[in-house]
């Protein structure tokens, strides 16, 4: 966001005046109305259903007919030791995903952009996002066959090239989180890079020309032209990702975890699945969902403030 000079303010004809301005605001609300209506119907009306978390919901009795139980559902999992372990795992895995998984799409987009052939760029880009389409059912089986102690390629290399004993990766607590983060990155980096590729293509060529004239080499150009060009979208995505930190995809972990790695791999979504869905306890699930939302919101609130201070951009 650029800061405006006093002279700019005078030059602007309509915007900067407080209060309701018919000409300006009517048009704007015209743009907003369809969206606000849809959101009201499909997001705010169901929001009323959050009261399920304070009731013991029975499908037949319906939302209104089910009995109130106050904070019982919240107490049930907040006092459960396992829940805190699960919360910790969720946070750790997510932080790992941000640290490892966030820079990779950016780097990839940058490197891709530097390829000299447009055709090559297109081909590589297409290849990069293919894994996104593989369902986790298939991706998980690929992961486990690669890591298999007896037939997996990684262990073949370990045994034959290094002469060491095979490692049962998926059964070891030390490796599990890393496996999750790396496989998730494999699957998603191509898709995530799309945002950055789009942003890079919006950068004005003139800026590169100007930098070259000023004597900037490749790296310099990247640093001074490309990076600033994608800065805005990168911050947005980062803030949004932190804001969803307490939610990890269920399928990936469910398919890859096992009894030996529960302590480090069990996350909120798998926990909720076992509790709520396998046993159909909607009230409990809703209560967990509410808690998740609150934590996410707190996280995003603070990230937002940091972003406003250090990067000059905020979500609201």
């Amino acid at each position, binding site marked *: 966001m650029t800061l405006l000079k006093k002279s700019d303010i005078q030059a602007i004809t309509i915007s900067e005046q407080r209060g309701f301005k018919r000409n300006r605001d009517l048009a704007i609300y015209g743009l907003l109305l369809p969206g606000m209506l849809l959101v009201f119907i499909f997001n705010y009306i169901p929001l009323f259903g959050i009261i399920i978390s304070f009731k013991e919901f029975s499908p037949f009795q319906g939302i209104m007919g089910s009995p109130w139980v106050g904070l019982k559902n919240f107490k049930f999992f907040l006092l459960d030791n396992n829940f805190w372990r699960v919360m910790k795992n969720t946070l750790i895995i997510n932080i790992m995903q941000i640290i490892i998984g966030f820079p990779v799409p950016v780097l990839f987009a940058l490197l891709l952009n530097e390829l000299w052939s447009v055709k090559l760029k297109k081909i590589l880009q297409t290849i990069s996002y293919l894994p996104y389409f593989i369902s986790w059912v298939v991706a998980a089986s690929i992961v*486990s066959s690669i890591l298999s102690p007896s037939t997996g390629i990684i262990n073949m290399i370990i045994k034959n090239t290094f002469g060491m004993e095979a490692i049962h990766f998926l*059964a070891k607590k030390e490796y599990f989180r890393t496996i999750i983060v790396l496989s998730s990155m494999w699957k998603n980096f191509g898709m995530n890079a799309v945002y950055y590729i789009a942003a890079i293509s919006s950068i004005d060529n003139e800026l590169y020309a100007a930098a070259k004239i000023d004597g900037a080499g490749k790296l310099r150009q990247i640093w001074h032209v490309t990076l600033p060009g994608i800065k805005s979208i990168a911050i947005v995505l980062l803030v949004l990702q932190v804001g969803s930190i307490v939610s990890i995809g269920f399928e990936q972990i469910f398919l890859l975890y*096992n*009894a*030996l790695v529960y302590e480090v791999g069990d996350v909120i979504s798998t926990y909720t699945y*076992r*509790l709520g869905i396998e046993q159909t306890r909607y009230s409990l699930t809703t209560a967990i969902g509410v808690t998740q939302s609150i934590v996410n919101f707190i996280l995003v609130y603070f990230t937002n403030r940091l972003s406003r201070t250090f990067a000059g951009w905020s979500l609201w």
Partner: protein
Amino acid sequence: MKRKVILLITLMLVFLLVLNACSSGNTPKDNSKDAVSTGADADTSNQPKDKLRIFQITASITYPDSFDFTDNFIVDELEEMANVEIVEAIVPPDTDVKTKFNLMMASGDICDVIHTTVGPADVYALGKTGAFVELTDIIKESPTLSKLYTPAQFELLKADDGKIYALRAMLVDGDASSFAVRYDLLEELGYTSMPDTMEGWIGAMRKLKAKYPDSLPYISREELHWTSFVFKSYGCEANGFGWQYYKGKAIHTFENPMYKEALKTYRMMIDEGLMDKEFPTDKVQDFQDKRLNRKVLVNQQNIGGMVDWIDRYPKNNIPKVIFIPGQYPKINDDRIEKISVYGGPPTFNGHTISISSTSKHKEGAVRFIEALYSDKNKELSTWGREGIEYSIVNGEKILNLDKANETSWRMIYNFPFGYNTKEKLMLTVKQFIASTDHDEAGKQRYEKLFIENAEKTIEDSFSVDMNPFAFIILDTDTGTRLTEAQNEARTIAIKAMIGELSLEEFDAEAAAFTKKYQFITDEYNKKLPEAKIKAGIK
């Protein structure tokens, strides 16, 4: 420009309206409502047929894509018998039964007849909130239904408030927990009969491993349901991680004195390479691949499930396999209780049939259910139609295999009878063995071996009292904690089995575990006396 935008938006709205009209329309319930109200004025001389909607489960039985649950020769026959018309059948995919069922209950738009597999606990709970018709009198007054259950079984149908909210499928007398043996491998090693002690089996596994170093004589899977071969033989049922009935009380299986013996056996098997040590991360596909390809001598399966595997071996080019049930090895030790080794007499499976309390055609629903439990349905779903799927030769029923396979979906309607009846077992064993790669004599021998061993296993299984645990329904909250407890126990068990925990460390963890979840043990013990009465144990 503004005009263009308005035009565009108007076009979109019109398009949406058209789309709305093009959609498949409302549920047939609206149509049926109108029809019923004019029923009395119907010009036919027959009574107007009640129009029913059913919610039905297929339990993984496959059916052709063009199949219509409201219009096939079995449902047509049932409609005729009950003088009803099935106007809609909601048949969710197996993976989503629970979701669809709960959504239906929540929506208020409930089918008249509801067949589901969500389990008696959920169904009874819903019944208590008024969702289902109370069936006690209906069963008593119905000629068909009153004959289904003995007085003892009738008692079993009752929820803990004494009311009956659902019918159960008939007792399953043709199935039992067991383990599958590659008898052909045993014969290859020189055996002429199955070993019957634990040492005997271990010896056979060692011989197999010596002959084929690449083989995996015993395999399992992450859920540990598949390790019963050892755990059960030592009287530690509940798959090694749950609660069990022992010497009259409820305990967690860790507290069973034989548990550590079982652990020692597992350790030994893993160290010697007799048991696949990758089992903690094996999923379904891995397990099945290994079963097929790695010369597995022993692995877990109930008899009903085993039958399906008979033809998988020849289909995958694994020749001359003889895949039959085995009996749990006998271990001589007073600390082992037979009731923990064997499954007990026939029980109900998880299928329930109920009538919605909001149904407008309750009598029709009852008649339809009676038709479902009729002998005619049993015949159609098990054998098929005479002259088509089966023929009578010398007074005996013989299946016409090709035709019978074409309408294999008939099994779906066998749900009132529990699917795995003895009759069905004999039938399908024959069917599957017929498609294997043995010669005629080989096939007959195979069939004989399978049936003999199945009968022995079933007999053993039914020789003990009913396990009272089957009649205990835990409180909702305890039930939820139970799942978590079982997960924890499973972790401890697996670690001990593969040697990550020494036996001393196991002792410590097991003690801590039992203490942490003492409240579950207590609740089981609290409900045990009543359960014992229901199970018929003194």
